[in-house]
């Protein structure tokens, strides 16, 4: 019985010691972890100047690029508008060409109507004049007889 109690006590003591050990290890190691978390940010003066200058130039480049993008966008819009106007111009020109071709056809047709006919010939007028004169003279002769 005593032996059992002694063994139990012993195991409890050993467990406590182990817990203490772990706690101590954690306590001693914590500063190490803390220091390792801090990054090494030590720069020379020249490096600071360089970083500052690089940052400035990048900021300026960024603003210029933004302006460039907006300028290019405006340019694209203008060229699209020009393209639309070109299409409109071509459309109107085609319409004009159609109307002019139609006009040519109409003028040709008009020319056909105004072309001198067979009865507009001078020979016909001349012969009909002679015929009228002969017939009239014959008529007069007959009337006199």
């Amino acid at each position, binding site marked *: 019985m005593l032996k059992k109690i002694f063994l139990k006590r012993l195991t409890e003591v050993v467990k406590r010691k182990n817990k203490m050990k772990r706690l101590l290890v954690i306590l001693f190691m914590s500063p190490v972890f803390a220091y390792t978390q801090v990054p090494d940010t030590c720069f020379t*003066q020249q490096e*600071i*100047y360089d*970083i*500052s*200058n690089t*940052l*400035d*130039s990048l*900021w*300026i*480049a960024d603003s*210029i*690029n933004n*302006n*460039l993008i907006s*300028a*290019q966008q*405006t*340019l694209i819009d*203008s*060229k699209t*508008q*020009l393209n639309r*106007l*070109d299409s*409109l*111009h071509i459309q*109107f*020109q085609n*319409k*004009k060409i159609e*109307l*002019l071709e*139609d*006009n040519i056809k*109409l*003028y040709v*047709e*008009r020319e056909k*109507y*105004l072309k001198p*006919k067979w*009865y507009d010939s001078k020979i016909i007028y001349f012969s009909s004049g002679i015929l009228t004169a002969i*017939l009239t003279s014959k*008529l007069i002769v*007959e009337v006199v007889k």
Partner: protein
Amino acid sequence: MKQTLNKFYAFIAGIVTVVVAFILLKDKKTKNNVAKTDVKIAKNDQQIADTDTKIDDVIKQKEEVVEDIKKQEEVVEDLKEAKDSIEVKPEATVEDAKENILKKTNRGRKKKK
């Protein structure tokens, strides 16, 4: 004899009348057709004049747009030149440089809630 002559003259007169009537009718038809064609030509001319006005407007607008494009291209060229020749003023002190770095990086910016 007189009767034969009268018949002959009547026949001639008939033929002449028919020919003259035919010619007159043909002339009238031709004149009508010419008048119709003239009206069509006038209408076409009016449409051509309208189209010319529209074309002139479009050409004017195109000239304006081309001018704008030239100006915009100049702006783009200037920006490209400016991009190629960026000059930065160096900071006077290290403190200014530090402040500049903090101001222009995420560390320097306040976090939004």
